[in-house]
């Protein structure tokens, strides 16, 4: 039995009032000297038992009425505990709160956000449990970190629970999308791993029930259902507690991106801003503000954004200094502030540094393996390409720090030093571009082992058998590219004259395995019978790897002396170079990681987190298979511009901004259809509830919990009516009983 206002149970003391009045009445009496005492004594003897019984009943009814008044104002609630006689009802229950703290929970409806209401639900249930005193346990898990519960099986009244609730009261939505299946799977796993825990479990998934979180493409609910199915149906149930508001009007900045891949000093960079209208009515003249460092630049307002549509605004911005810059675009605040701002961090460069690894050194001018490539990348004379090639021998790879280069060209390289392959892989994955030219020095076995790894490595495909045409005239040429690609742009069109000018006298019979090399794309093919791939591309992480079925010199093909080679080399650099935004723009929740060369930088750093004045200290750590040390900030659940400050062993500190953005879909406040949710979860112990005005979640989850004040009032009415009847009957208020005298 719970009471909404237990302190009013002091009113039960009113029970003594009728007793006191009765006793006082017995002390206050009139004295009548009576003649017909014999009759009175006879009547008393005959009726004494009945009168006493009536008095006791009336007194009890009056006491009951007082008790019912006290109970009614204390608002009793029958719980499972009140029905403890029923089998299994009195079992201890673990109540697991799975709190959706995704960005959309910050949506404000009226005076409160969905997150406020979610915490209110938890607080009220804890208060109810405190009053219940049945010893139920409480577990609180936030969806943004399901592996780390805020509270694990804490009693409602203990200090651990109070501490956790205080921390929860200070927490904000994490701005990460809700991964509902993962959240439930983690909770179910924890329950299944704890067979000796409380016999009954109730999972309260407190969420705003947004469609993108719960329906998605239709597979989310299925995954949720699969997770719930693992729960023992007779010992666990799931409540989707819907705390979301029905208002969906919201404007979001869905993207802030440079139109070009690279940002160069002094070169105007076109920025594209997209604004989405998530509401159901068009919005007009939406103002936008661009923040660049200390500058505040009003952008042209968005004239009109139709409901459910996006509008685009473009703005050209010129960076005057190299380095990493952060830009932000803001909308006026609305009901969901989280998606009203978007940030981008760009690396603005003066030039592109390209590492050229020359596998075979030449004896004379332009005789080296990479001489023609070096000329193609940085032609002599007045032509400025912005590319700075650095040619090294293969041995240099053992020591070289790749982080200073935007692209790496390896020409006729026998093998990449195996111990440096993981660094190369990480460098590519973080946005680096690698171009590999074949040659006769290539150790196919080493390449297959270290670089291809049956499709798990960097190589777009495994090396093949060497084919050589007897004469150049018989060598295959290039086929016209089948699709659009920047690298093949120069060869577009069947009658393109460059196609026939390239002769591949020597080639490898490369084969792209559909199984291992699923992500490899063949950009150019030869026109031999096998249509041997000539230029292949494979995306790896944020970077890419290009394999050319030719040497960078004239040993295998005539391409290096063709003008198309220069064009393609330039395009290759730009395609391979990390985008200006690469590695510096993270989604909320994605860890911020930075590799350090301990020889050049102190193995520590400080990061300034948005909204926090004091920077957090980071210490670099080694990782298996890497010479570099790594700084890592795993918690990036708060959107904004993070600034990482590094201290080189010589020189001034380096400040690197990182942009952390909320998933733009968080602004989509469209609600999941409850019927659809329940249909997908039919047959499972899942219910969707909305906390009522009293926030009485226990009643909604346990079912046996009902407000009893109406019943109390009804009983009170009955008790008073019965008391009146009995009192009237006892008093016999009727004149008909007067004995008529003397006819």
């Amino acid at each position, binding site marked *: 039995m719970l009471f909404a206002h237990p302190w009013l149970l002091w009113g039960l003391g009113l029970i003594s009032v009728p007793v006191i009045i009765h006793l006082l009445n017995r002390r206050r009496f009139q*004295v009548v000297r009576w003649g017909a005492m014999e009759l009175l004594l*006879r*009547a008393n003897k005959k009726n004494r038992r009945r009168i006493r019984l009536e008095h006791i009943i009336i007194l009890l009814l009056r006491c009951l009425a007082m008790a019912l008044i006290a109970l009614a104002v204390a608002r009793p609630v029958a719980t499972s505990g009140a029905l403890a006689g029923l089998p299994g009802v009195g079992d201890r229950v673990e109540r697991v709160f799975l709190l959706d703290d995704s960005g959309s929970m910050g949506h404000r409806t009226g005076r409160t956000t969905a997150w406020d209401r979610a915490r209110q639900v938890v607080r009220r249930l804890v208060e109810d449990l405190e009053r219940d005193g049945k010893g139920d346990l409480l577990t609180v898990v936030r969806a943004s970190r399901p592996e780390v519960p805020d509270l694990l099986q804490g009693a409602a009244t203990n200090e651990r629970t109070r501490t956790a609730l205080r921390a929860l009261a200070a927490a904000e939505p994490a701005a990460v999308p809700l991964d509902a299946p993962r959240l439930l799977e983690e909770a179910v796993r924890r329950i299944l791993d704890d067979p000796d825990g409380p016999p009954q479990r109730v999972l309260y998934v407190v969420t705003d029930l947004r469609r993108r979180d719960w329906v998605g493409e239709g597979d989310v609910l299925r995954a949720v259902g699969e997770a719930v199915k693992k729960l023992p149906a007779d010992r666990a149930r799931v409540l989707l507690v819907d705390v979301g508001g029905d208002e969906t009007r919201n404007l979001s900045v869905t993207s802030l991106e440079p139109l070009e891949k690279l940002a160069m000093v002094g070169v105007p960079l076109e920025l594209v801003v997209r604004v989405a209208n998530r509401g159901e009515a068009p919005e007009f003249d939406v103002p936008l503000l661009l923040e660049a460092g200390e500058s505040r630049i009003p952008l042209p307002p968005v004239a009109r954004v139709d409901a459910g549509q996006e509008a685009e605004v473009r703005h050209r911005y010129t960076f005057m200094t190299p380095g990493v810059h952060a830009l932000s675009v803001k909308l006026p605040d609305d009901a969901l502030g989280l998606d009203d701002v978007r940030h981008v961090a760009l690396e603005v460069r003066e030039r592109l540094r390209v590492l050229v690894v020359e596998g075979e050194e030449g004896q004379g001018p332009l005789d080296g393996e990479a001489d023609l490539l070096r000329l193609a990348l940085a032609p002599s004379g007045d032509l400025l390409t912005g590319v700075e090639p650095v040619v090294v021998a293969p041995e240099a790879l053992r020591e070289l720090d790749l982080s200073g280069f935007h692209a790496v060209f390896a020409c006729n390289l026998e093998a990449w030093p195996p111990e440096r392959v993981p660094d190369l892989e990480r460098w590519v994955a973080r946005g680096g571009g690698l171009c590999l030219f074949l040659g006769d020095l290539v150790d196919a076995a080493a390449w297959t082992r270290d670089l291809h790894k049956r499709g798990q490595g960097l190589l777009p495909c495994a090396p093949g058998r060497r084919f050589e045409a007897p004469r150049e005239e018989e060598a295959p040429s290039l086929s016209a590219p089948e699709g659009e690609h920047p690298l093949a742009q120069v060869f577009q069109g069947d009658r393109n004259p460059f196609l026939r000018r390239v002769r591949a006298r020597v080639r490898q019979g490369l084969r792209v395995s559909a199984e291992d090399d699923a992500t490899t794309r063949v950009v150019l093919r030869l026109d031999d019978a096998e249509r041997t791939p000539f230029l292949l591309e494979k995306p790896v992480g944020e970077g890419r790897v290009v394999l050319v079925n030719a040497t960078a010199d004239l040993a295998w093909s005539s391409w290096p002396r063709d003008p198309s080679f220069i064009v393609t080399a330039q395009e290759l650099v730009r395609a391979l170079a990390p985008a200006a935004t690469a590695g510096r723009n993270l989604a909320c929740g994605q860890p911020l990681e930075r590799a350090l060369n301990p020889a050049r930088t102190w193995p520590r750093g400080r990061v300034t987190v948005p909204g926090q004045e004091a920077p957090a200290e980071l210490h670099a750590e080694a990782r298996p298979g890497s010479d570099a040390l790594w700084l890592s900030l795993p918690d990036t659940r708060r959107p904004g511009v993070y600034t990482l400050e590094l201290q080189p062993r010589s020189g001034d500190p380096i400040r690197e901004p990182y942009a952390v953005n909320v998933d733009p879909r968080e602004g989509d406040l469209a609600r999941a259809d409850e019927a659809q949710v329940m249909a997908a979860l039919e047959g499972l112990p899942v219910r969707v509830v909305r906390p009522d005005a009293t926030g009485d979640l226990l009643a909604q989850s346990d079912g046996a919990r009902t407000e009893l004040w109406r019943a109390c009032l009804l009983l009170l009415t009955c008790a008073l009516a019965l008391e009146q009847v009995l009192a009237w009957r006892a008093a016999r208020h009727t004149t008909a009983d007067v004995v008529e005298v003397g006819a």
Partner: protein
Amino acid sequence: MPAVALPEDVRDRIARLSVGAFGLVEGSLAGLHKSPYQGFSVEFAQHREYTWGDELRHVDWKVFARTDRHYVKQYEEETNLQATIVLDQSESMLYRGSRAQASKYEYAATLAAGLAFVLLRQQDAAGLVLFDDQVRRRLPPSAHPAQLRNMTSAMAEVELRAETTAGPVLHQLADELTRRGVVFIISDLLFPRAQLLDGLKHLRHKRHDVVVLQVVDPDELSFPFEDMTRFEGLEVPRALLVDPRALRQGYLEALGEFLREVEAACTEARADHVRMDTGAPVGVALARFLSQRLGRRGRG
């Protein structure tokens, strides 16, 4: 000391009424009552020797002169009524409710005075017996006009204290009242009904015309008490603290049973029984009683 007097309004109301006996009564006053005996009258019947108590005016001085012996003359004429009023002076008669004109004793005494007034006015003899557990005072029947004053004085001088024990009293009266007449018993009858029945039967056996005037207070009939009340017995040394509303029904049932028993006893003894409510003006009650009795006598 209770105030006993005959109020003027009572006197006026009953002045023209009379008390009659239903059967033959022994008496000496001519007019209203047929006497079975010879008495003092204008029509001479015989002489008899003087005895103590005979009025000297009836002595036949001529016979005395001739015989030197005292003889009184007896005449054939209508007899006068000899009525004895038996008044209960027990402590229970002290009760007076809020709606009563007077206490039961005062009311009963006024009734007795009224009756005596009527009797004396019609030149009948009226006597008085005051009793509780025994006969406390007795005024022999007399038709003398001073008898009314003597009776009221006697009734005013009583001290009500003891309980009623009517049985021995009535038997004693039946033995002592040698001359047949009317016996008015004025009481609340709060004593055992068997005693009442035996006494009445004894009186009736002696050929007396017995009239029982039962005096009751309105409170005794309706038991109107509301608040907690401690009832202390006026005669019975018992007290009872009770919620009177709860006991009312039971009391009224007991009262009804009591009244029915009284009625039955009177009927069985062939005595008249009339309840007198002290809430009603005594003159009205007495006048109505006498009128009804006169009417019945006329019809009888």
